């Protein structure tokens, strides 16, 4: 007899559990949808300032940056994403000085670990939250961060932007 009652109680608890499940989906059918509609919401989309998806080197209006080409970022990068190519020049007072020639960075290789920005002694680079970077060509991802003809900023001036912290 017990097996018969088990049969029916099993049937009814089963049906009850299924109906409970359906009640949840029914409720969700009418709740507000949570979808953020990119790209339709491109104007209103807020990405956190701290989000890292592109390394940049801020230049001021005189086309000057703060990079001294010391190479600490290159040294700290775990997988060789950054290449600082410097050249030696002679200043007016006859001293030899290292200045930045090319600051190359491979977006397609970067892991956004933030070590370069953390260790940069002169706050010359920072991460931006511009995330629209997809391209058709792998070479396009290898970028040069310093602008053409840019110079090192005079140290006495305040840095353009404080570090993201």
């Amino acid at each position, binding site marked *: 007899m017990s097996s018969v009652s088990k049969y029916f109680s099993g*049937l009814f608890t089963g049906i009850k559990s299924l109906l409970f499940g359906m009640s*949840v989906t*029914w409720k969700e*059918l009418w709740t507000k*949808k949570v979808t953020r509609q990119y790209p339709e919401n491109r104007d209103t989309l807020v990405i956190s300032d701290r989000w890292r998806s592109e390394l940049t080197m801020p230049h001021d209006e005189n086309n000057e940056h703060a990079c001294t080409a010391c190479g600490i970022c290159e040294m700290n990068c775990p997988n060789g994403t950054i290449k600082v190519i410097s050249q030696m020049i002679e200043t007016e007072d006859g001293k030899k000085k290292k200045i930045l020639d090319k600051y190359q960075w491979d977006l397609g290789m970067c892991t956004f670990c933030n070590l370069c920005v953390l260790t940069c002694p002169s706050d010359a680079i920072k991460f931006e939250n511009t995330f629209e970077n997809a391209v058709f060509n792998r070479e396009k991802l290898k970028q040069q961060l310093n602008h053409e003809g840019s110079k090192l900023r005079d140290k006495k001036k305040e840095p353009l932007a404080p570090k993201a912290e």
Partner: protein
Amino acid sequence: MILNYSQPLEVTNLTSWLDAALRSSLPEFWVLLIEFVLVGVAFLAAYAVIALILIYAERKITAFFQARFGPNRVGKWGLLQSVADMVKILLKEIVKINRSDRFLFFAAPFFMIVASMATFGAIAFGKGLHAIDFNIGVLYVTAVSSLGIIGVLLAGWSSNNKYSMIGAMRSGAQFVSYELSAGFALMTIVVLAGTMQFSTMIEGQRYCWNLFNGHISSLIAFIIYLISGHAETNRGPFDLPEAESELTAGYHTEYSGLQFGFYYLAEYLNMFIIASIATAVFLGGYMPIQVKGWVAFNGIMEYIPSYIWFFGKTAVLIFLSLWVRWSFPRLRIDQLLNLEWKYLLPINLVNIVLMVILVLSGLTLTDLLPGWF
């Protein structure tokens, strides 16, 4: 021929006018031939359009169940999404599979489509919109719809793929089980209605749907039919032959391009077919809601064309099936067989006897309350 002015929106008006026009100018044979071709074209169009609408509807409704929006970038509200899919899939390469059973592999989609098309033909879409109306309609539908499973079985068997093979085995077990339940559930209603012809059955439900007429017994049969019908269409939670998370794509793993498209199409069409048969058998088909004695009300209801009634009722059942599909996890093969052989089948056997007793001892609603219905 007198046009029926009380129902100006019926398609019957158009068809009978067409028929009359053709007959006045052409001999009998040509009229019939043209009409057959027209019927074929109409079915082709209806088949495609309904499938496209259903695919769109399912994707949208699924999304709403899942707190998202679903397709909304192709056309207004994503309405053209399934059209885009169709264009894409039509022009996709069809891959030839090595060491497969070429003939069966090629034939399987035919079974699938022809089976669903043949069942599709037996659906009463509206007054006069009813092609195949055998006097053994219910039996015919049961028989023809089961052909589709052969398509699944063949696809799985012929693909030379192990996932497909397991899918085929599962579909075999599933089919032999649920075919029975569906048949018995329909039989219960045949007892009640006293006919197997769909048109007669629908007309008989003018004032009282079979669902209400046989009350307890009908309700049980209705639920069992929905479950087993749902299972026959291989849709979740009964999608074992496909079982994405287990068998990658199950029986149609090796099908590409349009051959796969046919399976995709037939899946949705079968869902529609099951819902529309349930509508015809249990919910009065294309009959509007009518109450004896309420002449004005009946008039208004009659004014709404019969196909609207049909599609409305079917849509409710389709929604129900989607709701179930997106609420539950997939059954395991032994759960599936348990459900059939230990629950549905014994209940069905008892239910059919119960229905006979109800009918014979005058306990159906029409017998109990003769003035009302």
